[in-house]
């Protein structure tokens, strides 16, 4: 793996020499094909799509709708009508909560949320529950971040309308058995919302195979520009849901006091859409497909294992979640005894190594695990063994730099 053929595709590594980028769970770097595709759109295809009656606008519409088709194919959805473009996973989750949630969840109904969820898959449900008098319940994991089918069966009640869980937790990096959980939820008459922000960029995800009712993800965590995200929803659910935002491009016919709304998916895409972001996402999907998930998974697992095994040997370093490398899909969250995670990140920064520190937008999980905050390294296929070596070499020096053993 020492011959890394991928880094040259990412201009940031040329601009920012010596950078070790290990914050891929927050956002990934962008390769030339994505940047060039977005620039080409603005140079030669830019017009307001979906409405214009001239050639350039048709080009913009085609570029946008081709991107939707690429996303449909990428996640195995039945129809383009099931693919809604949003800003990011957070907006997709808010759309579900505002539109589906407010129409279908009432007083005394229950919403079940996994305790390890990112705030974006918790706060929309927390607000909805408060507004509607619904009950927010949590599915708890063990200290290794594992959820069991038995615990899920116990947590579901006849009143549970919706179950929200990530396919891969942004703290633990563990893959949750979504297909099994979807079956259990559906037998209970409960819908399942799957946050794919940390899974869709790193493994083959097929919505029909997982049998989820909703899947959300962000483009920027999978090489695409910021500001483009996806909501997948089963067509029969989206069809019945009221619009989320109202305005231009999402109407069929408007009078002084009423309106009929556009067909799916445009009903959920009010206002001028982000075509530059969508074509960038299309290029990202093509780039990922040209490498293939077999290769991406192989590289990321190999690097995860290398980092994990090294970290286990360093005194005072505690890995959060699974104590096996296989329980970490490119994400390793950790603490160092006596050193605050912000200081850990500052020591890494002094060596040009980018890692994340804090609560990773998962405060209830940190409370559940009884830790204040943590540091996190997260990999992508364009990392290599040299990145991992520099990471572990620096990790060994953290305590000494903070005054221990002087």
């Amino acid at each position, binding site marked *: 793996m020492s011959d890394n053929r991928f880094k040259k595709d990412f201009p940031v590594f040329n601009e920012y020499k010596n950078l070790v980028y290990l914050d891929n769970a927050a956002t990934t770097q962008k390769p030339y094909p994505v940047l060039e595709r977005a620039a080409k759109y603005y140079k030669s295809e830019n017009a307001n799509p979906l409405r214009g009656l001239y050639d350039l606008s048709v080009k913009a519409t085609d570029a946008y709708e081709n991107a939707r088709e690429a996303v449909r194919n990428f996640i195995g959805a039945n129809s383009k009508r099931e693919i809604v473009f949003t800003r990011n996973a957070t907006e997709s989750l808010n759309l579900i909560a505002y539109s589906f949630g407010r129409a279908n969840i009432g007083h005394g109904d229950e919403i079940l949320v996994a305790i390890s969820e990112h705030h974006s898959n918790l706060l929309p449900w927390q607000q909805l529950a408060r507004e509607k008098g619904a009950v927010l319940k949590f599915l708890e994991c063990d200290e290794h971040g594992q959820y069991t089918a038995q615990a899920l069966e116990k947590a579901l009640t006849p009143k549970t309308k919706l179950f929200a869980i990530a396919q891969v937790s942004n703290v633990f990096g563990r893959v949750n058995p979504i297909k099994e959980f979807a079956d259990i939820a559906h037998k209970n008459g409960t819908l399942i919302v799957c946050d794919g922000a940390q899974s869709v960029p790193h493994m083959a995800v097929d919505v029909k195979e997982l049998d989820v009712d909703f899947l959300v993800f962000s483009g920027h965590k999978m090489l695409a520009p910021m500001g483009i995200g996806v909501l997948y929803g089963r067509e029969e659910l989206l069809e019945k849901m009221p619009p989320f935002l109202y305005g231009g491009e999402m109407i069929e016919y408007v009078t002084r006091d009423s309106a009929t709304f556009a067909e799916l998916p445009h009903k959920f895409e009010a206002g001028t859409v982000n075509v530059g972001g969508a074509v960038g996402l299309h290029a990202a999907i093509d780039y990922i497909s040209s490498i293939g998930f077999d290769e991406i998974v192989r590289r990321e697992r190999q690097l995860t294992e290398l980092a994990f095994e090294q970290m286990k040997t360093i005194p005072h370093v505690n890995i959060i979640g699974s104590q096996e490398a296989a329980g970490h899909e490119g994400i390793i969250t950790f603490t160092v005894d006596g050193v605050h995670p*912000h200081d850990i990140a500052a020591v890494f920064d002094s060596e040009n190594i980018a890692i994340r520190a804090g609560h990773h937008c998962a405060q209830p999980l940190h409370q559940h695990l009884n830790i204040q905050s943590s540091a996190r390294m997260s990999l992508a296929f364009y990392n290599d063994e040299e990145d991992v070596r520099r990471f572990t070499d620096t990790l060994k020096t953290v305590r000494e730099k903070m005054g221990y053993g002087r």
Partner: protein
Amino acid sequence: MADNFYNDILIDHNLHPIHLHELPCATCSNAGINPTCGDQLTLNLVVKDGLIKDGSYTGVGCAISQASTDIMLELIIGRTVEDAKHLCELFDKMIGGEITDDELEELEEAAALQNISKMPARVKCAKLGWKTLIRLLDDNS
């Protein structure tokens, strides 16, 4: 980040804080929170006749927030409320990179945090104790 940012003064105040303890006789207390990391600290003061007679803090935080708060308390205990407010202003000026050499001298050990202005990501950490102090003094005067 400046290579020598974690200098001996910061390291020492973080590993061996002087004022990290409860203060049962406190006349006023206030909690400050850093939303980026969720770190929380509570500042306790004994204020009598416009004079800060004693002070302490409790809570968890990174080396910068802990050391900064500890240094701040070391600086303001025994001074008047007005002096303390003046020092808070100077600290803000220092972080903003606009302080004169004479003013820097007034800040004593807190001058060890001068380079924080080159680490924008950590400004909130350094300011946590000082912001909490200003609110506490404003609320109680």
